């Protein structure tokens, strides 16, 4: 059974909406130009001309307001422009009122069973950002939350939380072009130790426990 014909104005509106939306999604998700082009040090060439024009004139205008305001914001830069070479996880030291110190493991996907990995992935997603210095403003809330997770005895509350990052940088391997030219080296064995970096020391807010 065919639908009754829509009014002409509605058909026109739907068509305009369709193409404007697709255009907005393309503009919003387009890659950024290389940093040197973006900052004006290098003149854009090739596809960078389009990327630079998008960055300056299309993306930050009405398109971005539309994408944010109507719940259709998105980005498709998974493992891009390069997969991270930072294998990272975290833990914390909690110092209690009586002076005892306990180490607490922030949810670590590698150590979990199959269902747990599936259910707890969001903790990894969060720490992917929280371990970076540029997101240092996350750390007080994160440490306060850690204190709340580790407060079994109200008579002996946590007083201090030290947030640690454990990081291993992946070494480079043979490129495909080098392999074609005859380099048959295997990828390096990547089982070196993780670093121990103190990210933040936080005095627990007892009123938020």
């Amino acid at each position: 059974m065919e639908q009754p014909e829509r009014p002409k104005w509605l058909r026109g509106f739907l068509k305009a909406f369709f193409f404007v939306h697709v255009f907005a999604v393309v503009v919003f998700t387009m890659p950024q130009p290389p940093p040197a082009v973006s900052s004006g040090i290098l003149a854009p060439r090739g596809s960078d001309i389009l990327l630079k024009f998008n960055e300056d004139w299309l993306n930050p205008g009405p398109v971005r307001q539309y994408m944010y305001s109507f719940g259709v914001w998105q980005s498709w830069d998974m493992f891009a422009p390069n997969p991270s070479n930072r294998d990272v996880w975290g833990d914390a030291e909690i110092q209690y009122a009586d002076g005892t110190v306990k180490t607490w493991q922030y949810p670590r996907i590698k150590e979990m069973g199959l269902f747990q990995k599936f259910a707890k992935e969001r903790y990894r997603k969060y720490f992917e950002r929280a371990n970076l210095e540029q997101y240092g403003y996350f750390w007080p809330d994160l440490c306060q939350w850690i204190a709340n997770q580790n407060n079994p005895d109200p008579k002996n509350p946590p007083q201090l939380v030290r947030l640690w990052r454990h990081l291993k940088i992946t070494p480079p391997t043979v490129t495909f072009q080098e392999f074609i030219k005859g380099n048959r080296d295997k990828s390096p064995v990547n089982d070196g130790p993780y670093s121990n970096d103190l990210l933040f020391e936080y005095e627990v807010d007892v009123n938020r426990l």
Partner: protein
Amino acid sequence: MKQTLSYADNWFFGQTRPEAIGLLRAMCGFYATVNLLLLSLDFKNFFGEKSFFTQEGMTRWLTYPANKLYPGTSHEITLPFSLPRFTLIPAGSSDAWITFIYVVTIGCAILFMLGWRSRVTGILLAIGLTSLHLRTPVIIHAGDTLLRLFIIYLALGQSSAAYSLDRWIEARKGVAQRLVSIWPQRMIQFQIAICYLMTAWWKWTGSTWVDGTATWYSSQLHEFDRFPAPAFLNNQPFVGITTYGTLLVEVALGTLVFYRPWRKWVLLSGVALHSYIEYSFNIPFFATTIVGGYVAFYYGDEVADWIIRFRKRWLKKGTLSSDAAPEI
């Protein structure tokens, strides 16, 4: 010329049988329900007042000026009005209110899956998901984003015209099945194609996707570990083959998928790519959502035939009867 325009108009905005969009709705409703149920396991940690990401953090994260175009540039424009991000969970919301929004959202997800008034339940589900995503944007992954977008597009269409409670009630009243507008389904197609094309473009702006070493680096991120992959895949030439193969499949999924004779093979290559990623990487909901979205590349009569074939083979009933349906 007129004929071409008419064909294009019909391709974008014609009518089709509703089985494809109905199946997409049921699938997205199911994924949304499971996704929301999983969130309940850590609800307080993600959304509560004592969350690791407080509402002050949220406000700081969502700092894009709502009344400015081209902010921070020489051509900045200040608008006489604000266009804030639409959310039901503004800063200062109580735990009770956030819990209420969550419960209503999961209720809508179940009703949307079952196909009861899917325009209303779909729009409410989209608003609920958007609000939860904006409450704690730092835990939102690509699977969440894709699901939210699919649900918005499905809510705009008549997605409960098949495989739904609404259709079951109509059929009992003797109402014939109707055709539906195809443009929301086309929107999902374009969304998927843009997703693949843009990710391939982003990758091509990096160095490791160009020199054929990208999959070596991703394989060393052990917080993504699910099942172990064979060790030989971490050496050349396999690192190069999987790196360039990923790019090729992504570009094909953004372009050649629209060429009908190649559609099946392009989509199967996408299934193979995502199956490998799903096996070795712990990235919940992304593969299932985007591969499920491949249904959008099929017409309603094709999907109806799959279902009838399935019923014939496994339930021993039904006949292929959809040939009479007009094809767009």
